[in-house]
């Protein structure tokens, strides 16, 4: 290609499978076709991504869904105002425990079927036995305090009667170190994206007990976080990139491209793990440990089900969990900040020229769709959901006060200073 790109965009990403849509946009020519030269930088921590966005090294980045909210709400140091114009997919995480914990759960009736409720029940029984015998609390790891992983792990435990604040300990471990920390006994379990669960199973050191797709079907995970000041200065560059990401996401979803995508993500500059280890994320076919296998529908959805639409209701659910676990105080001011962070208007404006199906609403009631449902949309047809929570709860973004109150019975939210 001799033509000079119209726009230059620098983006950061972490070595996780759900960076695939961003990576493929750059590597498979989708960005170039939209006149964007996309320069990708692999990072070693979410803190580095945040810092490099703040000082202008990166224009945008692969981010944890709650991370831009945390930046705008002043929960992190060195934050710059960050917006979310695109979601990088739905689902993709698992909860994995050590073989010792799995054996303890199995003794209390757990079976390898990924069903969250009975697995949580067995874990609760195992924890009570352990405490009665004077054992240390179990230690679980997540990748970041402001992550879908932290909130879904806590949601699962709390719904199964385990208090994640008192009955277990939650620590932070970088994704590529999870399996190693499990093997050496520094942690007893974790919630992380692929391929870091399959890696533990392949090494014979862990057992997958449940998956994000079964805790909350078709739920939000990683997003594109863009520096607001940059997005306002370069609206055309952003719109061109969003179109490239749209084409890339469709390519990533297509079964015919699985081998090529797995080979791309396996490269040393991206994940640096064997292509075979990328396949569970793509097929939903997981080895769980001890020879058990399961295929999970909608395990990771990079494109279908309006996966790339930045629903405000997704951002607001993250917000309710921040309030639930004392990361912030639920106030009208904070709620307004959370409401403004995800930008479906930018997504819609960028994709409108393509004539593709676009949701008409900015938010939806989460957990209301029991089956895949065609919805009215501008232009072509669109299918959403199912989007159920495993405990049957419903999140109505118009009833936030009630939702937070119901989740915090008797708990006065502990206010942590924003820095």
């Amino acid at each position, binding site marked *: 290609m001799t033509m000079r790109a119209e726009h230059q965009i620098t983006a950061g990403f972490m070595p996780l499978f759900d960076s695939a849509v961003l990576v493929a946009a750059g590597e498979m020519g989708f960005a170039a076709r939209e006149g964007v030269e996309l320069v990708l930088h692999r990072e070693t*921590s979410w803190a580095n991504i945040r*810092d490099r966005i703040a000082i*202008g*090294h990166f224009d945008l980045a692969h981010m944890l869904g709650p991370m831009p909210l945390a930046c705008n709400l002043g929960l992190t140091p060195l934050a710059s105002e960050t917006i979310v114009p695109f979601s990088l997919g739905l689902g993709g995480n698992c909860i994995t425990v050590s073989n010792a914990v799995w054996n303890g759960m199995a003794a209390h009736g757990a079976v390898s079927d990924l069903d969250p409720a009975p697995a949580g029940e067995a874990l609760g029984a195992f924890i009570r036995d352990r405490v009665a015998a004077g054992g240390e609390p179990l230690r679980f790891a997540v990748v970041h305090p402001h992550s879908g992983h932290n909130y879904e792990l806590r949601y699962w435990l709390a719904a199964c009667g385990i208090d994640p604040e008192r009955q277990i300990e939650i*620590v932070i471990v970088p994704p590529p170190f999870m399996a190693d920390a499990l093997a050496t006994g520094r942690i007893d379990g974790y919630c992380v994206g692929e391929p870091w669960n399959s890696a533990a199973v392949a090494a014979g050191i862990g057992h997958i007990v449940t998956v994000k797709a079964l805790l909350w079907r078709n739920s939000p995970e990683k997003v594109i976080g863009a520096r607001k000041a940059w997005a306002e200065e370069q609206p055309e560059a952003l719109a061109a990139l969003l179109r490239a990401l749209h084409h890339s996401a469709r390519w990533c979803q297509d079964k015919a491209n699985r081998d090529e995508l797995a080979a791309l993500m396996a490269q040393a500059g991206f994940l640096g793990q064997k292509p075979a280890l990328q396949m569970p994320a793509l097929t939903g076919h997981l080895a769980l440990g001890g020879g058990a296998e399961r295929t999970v529908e909608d395990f990771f959805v990079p494109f279908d089900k309006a996966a790339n639409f930045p629903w405000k209701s997704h951002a607001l659910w993250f917000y309710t969990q921040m309030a639930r676990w004392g990361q912030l105080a639920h106030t009208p001011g904070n709620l307004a900040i959370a409401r403004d962070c995800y930008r479906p208007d930018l997504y819609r404006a960028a994709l409108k020229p393509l004539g593709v199906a676009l949701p008409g609403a900015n938010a939806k009631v989460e957990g209301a769709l029991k089956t895949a449902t065609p919805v009215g949309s501008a232009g072509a047809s669109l299918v959403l959901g199912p989007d159920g929570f495993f405990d049957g709860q419903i999140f109505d973004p118009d009833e936030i006060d009630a939702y937070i109150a119901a989740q915090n019975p008797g708990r006065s939210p502990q206010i942590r200073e924003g*820095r």
Partner: protein
Amino acid sequence: MVPASLAVLVIDENRIRASIIEAGLREAGHQRVTVLHDVSGIARRIAEIEPDVIVIDLENPNRDMLENMFQLSRAVKRPIAMFVDRSDQASIEAAVDAGVSAYVVDGLRQERVKPILDMAVSRFNAFSRMARELEEARNELEHRKVIDRAKGILMKSRGLSEEAAYTLLRKTAMNQNRKIGDIAQALVTTAGLLGPLEDE
């Protein structure tokens, strides 16, 4: 009144760089300097050391874990914040560019910390320069080795003198508009595929 000396903790997996920082801090009169190369058991160490300033390299994948620990003050006794002086964007940029970050206990005056951060930034930059020069020297050596091997192959297979072999490599490179090292590498690879022409 002279303020009490600051306790500084340096977390860096790179031992050489860590010792360069440590030496810089000691030269600047900081006597209470601790260097840690890995983060296992770090909460306990921080509780013991009670650092006023923590300097950490940005390549460290444990930054997220450390920041989370700093925010939960029960693990570290005194709340620790990232060193951020909003009025001094340039020094934040310089630090990130150099690949270093600093955290300080809340309430510590910026002017006491800034010299430490500036020193860390300049030493990180010096270290990167040194590492780059070393890498270039290593590449240069590799480059020469491969040209020597290519010359050897040509001398043996075509009966050329060393000078003639080098001239042939250089001419080929010029004709194909490629680097002589690339031509030499291609020749060595091809020779390796075709059989044991070399007697090494």
